[in-house]
């Protein structure tokens, strides 16, 4: 299907866990440095030739760095805003009453938001104020604050099988594994020699973790023996912004990088790079794999385009 043109620079895409044709996009003006932001809710066409349609859009006063769909309500979105606030939107409500909630606790930009897929009522926000906050949708204040990182936390990811365990990636070059019930982090993995920009859990093996870093490599770790990575995937030419495990195949991963490509990896295979998409003309900063449709990929970048395509096809094909 054709690309969707957004007015601002794209930052993140997320497929809805409820509807296979629904997609949320976080965008920011002026590359997210200064200016407004917008949250788009897009609807994918039933037929491949038709264009993508926007069903809702919410403007924000500052850049939107990340977006997450609620796992409990099909119309609720959580957005991470660059002014340190976390905004909750409900697509069922009229635009006047949106945002549903604006949670202002972080002192710096909120860079990532992740919804708990197991517990379905809580989400994490990772911020540049070195802390991670745990929230529940019904509460106006955060439940827990995890402050241990020495530098910006770029990502937080819930473990798909253990509802209380999550991992965080930070600019202090470490990845920490936390348990919500513990006061502090339970594991500190010195994952890279440079900033770790993203981390994600393997959906089929709850002890496997992938980290994406500024050093152009993706490292796959087994937390049971975290001193040495299982594998190091090289292939990107610039820093890797996101890495996501496939919900359908255990060893498949998708990554997006500042080298304007979206790459698919299978770390169990000797030649790990199984796909490469060069459709963007600017930094690709957002990528997602649909849970409901196997092989459906979405990506967005600073070239103000959102692509949705099936793995194996050309993203730019109309």
């Amino acid at each position, binding site marked *: 299907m054709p690309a969707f043109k957004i007015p601002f620079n794209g930052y993140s895409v997320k497929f809805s866990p409820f509807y296979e044709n629904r997609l949320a996009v976080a965008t920011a003006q002026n590359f997210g440095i200064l200016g407004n932001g917008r949250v788009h809710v897009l609807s994918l066409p039933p037929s491949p030739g038709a264009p993508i349609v926007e069903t809702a859009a919410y403007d924000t006063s500052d850049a939107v760095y990340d977006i997450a769909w609620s796992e409990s309500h099909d119309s609720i979105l959580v957005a991470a805003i660059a002014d340190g606030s976390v905004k909750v939107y409900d697509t069922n409500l009229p635009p006047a009453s949106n945002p549903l909630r604006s949670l202002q606790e972080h002192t710096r930009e909120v860079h990532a938001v992740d919804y708990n897929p197991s517990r379905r009522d809580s989400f994490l926000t990772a911020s540049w104020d070195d802390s991670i906050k745990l929230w529940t949708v019904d509460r106006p204040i955060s439940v827990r604050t995890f402050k241990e990182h020495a530098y910006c936390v770029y990502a937080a990811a819930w473990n798909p*099988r253990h509802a209380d365990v999550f991992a965080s990636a930070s600019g202090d070059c*470490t990845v920490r594994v936390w*348990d919500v019930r513990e006061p502090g982090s339970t594991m500190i993995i010195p994952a890279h020699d440079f900033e770790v920009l993203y981390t994600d859990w393997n959906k089929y093996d*709850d002890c496997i973790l992938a980290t994406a870093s500024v050093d152009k490599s993706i490292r796959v770790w087994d937390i049971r023996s975290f001193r040495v990575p299982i594998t190091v995937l090289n292939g990107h030419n610039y820093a890797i912004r996101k890495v996501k495990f496939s919900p359908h195949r255990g060893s498949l991963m998708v990554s997006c990088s500042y080298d304007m490509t979206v790459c698919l990896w299978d770390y169990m295979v000797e030649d790990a790079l199984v796909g490469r998409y060069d459709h963007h003309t600017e930094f690709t900063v957002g990528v997602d794999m649909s849970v409901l449709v196997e092989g459906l990929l979405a990506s967005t970048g600073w070239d103000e385009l959102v692509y949705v395509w099936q793995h194996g096809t050309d993203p730019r094909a109309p």
Partner: protein
Amino acid sequence: MASPSTDTKIENPALAEPRNEGDQNATTKTPKPISSPSVFVNSEPIRPEQVENAVKFLSHPKVRGSPVMYRRSFLEKKGLTKEEIDEAFKRVPDPSPTVQGATVNQDPQPKLVANAQLQAPAQAQQTSAAPTRGVISRVISQPRFHWTHAIYAVGILAVSGAGSAVLFKNALIPRLKSWIRKIASEDENGVVRKPGSKPSATEEAAAAAKTAAEAAAQVAKASQEMMDMNIEEKRCFRNLIDMLEVQQREMREMSFTIRKLEDQTNSSSVVRTYSQDYRLSSSKQPYTNGMAEFNSLPGRSSLPPASVNSSIPPYPKSYIEEFNDLSSNAYQHMPNSGVAPRSKPWEAGQPPNSSSTYQLQADSDLGNINGSTSRWQQKNVRIAELENEEESKVGPYYSSQAPEQTARRPWVPPQPPPVAMAEAAEAIRRPKPTVQKEQQLTGDHKLDQPLNELQSVTDISEMGGAPEARPSEIVEELEGNC
């Protein structure tokens, strides 16, 4: 904060059980909710060497000045676990040593008490223990009690100063007074006032003067010794300098000799190149030169190498040995001008060069003077230049002779030349060398054989015909001419 945690805990047992059953990684299946994420906890034991390194790192003064967060972050990046980092932080003395001081105080006390019991009664024990305790506490709690320490020091200094002042007053004043009185008494009287304190004073003064004089003498001695030491040091330095100068001279001489050797080799190779050029320019003489060399060397080959070595730089030795090789296996040497088939000689091994030069000369001497000789000449020049660089590396060439020759084999030799040229070559061969040849033929057969073989070989290559007729023809011609 409490309610959500209780909420989670309530939920946990329900969730934990199915999770435990399904979770292959769970180590225990206790009803505790915390059992399942044991995988997500660092279960490594504390590594002592890592802790040691961390302690060293934290004890560094520069690190001390940095914020604690940076120190922790650094250690985390290095791969230390939380427990190890905490242990290291515990071990490194913090600016709050009260806890440490108390714990350490208790340890030495029983020991000291035990020691004191052997020596003195209970009171003494206590008194001895108390000051030791005080000392220990002072020593241990040093960092905090700097100021009291300073006060102590000041007090001691003041006391000592006061005491010394008092002493001086007590000692000096009587001495001064006695001195003055002595002088006065001397002026007035003579030696009458001997007994009493004054003569003692004078004696004391005299004694003091003597001691002063002795001290001065000692000082003088010491200074004298210092002077001697300096003189000795100077001598040693001078010796060193002399030795260095000697070494320098020797080094210079060595460099001179090396240069001389180089010049010699240069000159000899230059001579050879010139001879080759000369050969081309005038058809007759090069051959004579070559023949001359050719003649002379076989003669020399019989000589022991030592004599050769004494007069000539090393590489002619190989020259000789190569001629020996040539004699043994003449035909193989013909196509030897095989610098071309190999990779660039300046890249790959140096062995080919010197051997090839000589062989080339021999070949060209034997008169394969065709269009190819110009090429050979160039090669010779090139090789000669290279040879200059590598004169010192002649030794290994002997052993590498055979492979070189076999390596040269693949290169197609420039022979056979056309018949016309062969005739010209024949004609060239006629004049002087024929006379010499006669002499050789009549004379030394040993020497003859290589010559003949070589000639026959060249003839074969040139004519492509039967070699046997040739020498006889030449001989006939020679005889005819004569």
